[in-house]
């Protein structure tokens, strides 16, 4: 890794998700790549959900952080391969849990849609991030942000967010 590339990674390391400030953009897999190209340094980010309102903020944060450090770099948004929660590090998942968000399970292997529908009634077992109980129930597939579902713990009675496998 060249010293410029290393410097960019180091500069961007403190940047966290605007909605979930305990995990960094790198840990979430949003900050994908830094490389030196013929046109200069290129920073690649990838959107999480297509309509996630935080993406604009994230891009602005990356640009502002680079500008503040005096680094000239282009910020490029790349769609493929599509972002997946499987890129999240174990360390990031533990930080989410400690923050009160149940971390995402590994995504299920791709199945055809028809099979997917047949398997629809089987809910995921999600452990409560507060007490660890798996005696939980889904309240809604959609929660406070696009990436989360709303669950409740049937033992400690606390509602909690579940970061959906995506």
């Amino acid at each position, binding site marked *: 890794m060249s010293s410029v590339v290393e410097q960019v990674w180091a500069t961007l390391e403190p940047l966290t998700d605007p909605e979930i400030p305990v995990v960094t953009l790198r840990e979430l897999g949003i900050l994908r790549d830094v490389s030196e190209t013929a046109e200069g340094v290129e920073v690649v980010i990838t959107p999480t959900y*297509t309509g996630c309102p935080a993406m604009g903020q994230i891009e602005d944060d990356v640009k502002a952080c680079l500008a503040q450090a005096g680094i000239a770099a282009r910020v490029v948004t790349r769609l493929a391969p599509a972002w997946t929660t499987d890129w999240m590090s174990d360390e990031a998942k533990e930080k989410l849990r400690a923050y009160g968000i149940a971390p995402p399970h590994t995504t299920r292997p791709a199945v055809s*849609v*028809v099979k997917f529908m047949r398997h629809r009634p089987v809910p995921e077992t999600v452990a409560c991030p507060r007490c660890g109980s798996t005696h939980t129930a889904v309240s*809604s*597939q*959609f929660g406070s942000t696009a990436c989360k579902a709303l669950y409740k713990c049937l033992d400690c009675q606390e509602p909690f967010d579940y970061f959906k496998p995506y």
Partner: protein
Amino acid sequence: MSAIQPSVAQDRSKQASAPVGGSAPNAVGSVGAPIDYLLHLADNAVVLGQRNAEWCGHGPILEEDIAMGNVSLDYIGQARLLYQLAATRLGGDVTEDKLAYFRDDTQFRNYTLLELPHNGPLVGYAVSNRDYATTITRNFLYGALMVLVWEALEKSPDADLAAIAAKSLKEARYHLHHAADWLVRFGDGTDESHQRAQAALDHLFAYTEEFWTPSAAEEAAVASGAGVDVRSLRAAWDGIVNDTLTEATLVRPEVRGYVTEGKHGRHSEHLSYLLGEMQGLARAHPGATW
């Protein structure tokens, strides 16, 4: 309405007979989907996203208010990616905003189903002009189509479209899951919820016929290799719909008669009002930013 129009949409007679675009110069892959096909996919997403967003702050329960806000955001996000791709390939001064805000109703290529208001046949009085069974039933019928469309387009040789499809498929699965869950709850719920769900289904089902008659843009997309032949998805769609309706104790209506033509640009009156609301701000204050 007079408005700035992107070059794609200026000549309507030409657009009706032959799709604009063809193999695009800026395509990353060797095959570029026709522009009109991208606009059809984008218009579907933006119109249903705008329609469902009407529930924001008015949801029947808090969780569903939030769910509909999230689903709408996904749809508008998908529309943005598709409009951005179309704008890039059209080049010049075309932008995603021009495509969304400065085309008129007859230039939109969405299914008529998606522009209909939320009031089904049983509702539509002053006290409540939105019926959640209508919302859910539409989301289910369209959601079942889109998981199949995106699953096919994920393998499109148009690399940009395939990338959008791969992202959209993940979201579409959650949308279908959500709508199917509620349809079963409504259908197999109380007498009132069952009656409303069946009425919504009876009202909306005929509009799904539009899915299966390819438009010129869809035919051009199939010919280019970048698109999917919708007719090839029908058996799988029937399977999802029939299984879910059985579980919901709802009866699939017999469909006959007029097939709507929204994707050809011939819409119901409802689209004009929806666009009036969606486009009004951008047209009153061109170039305004937040």
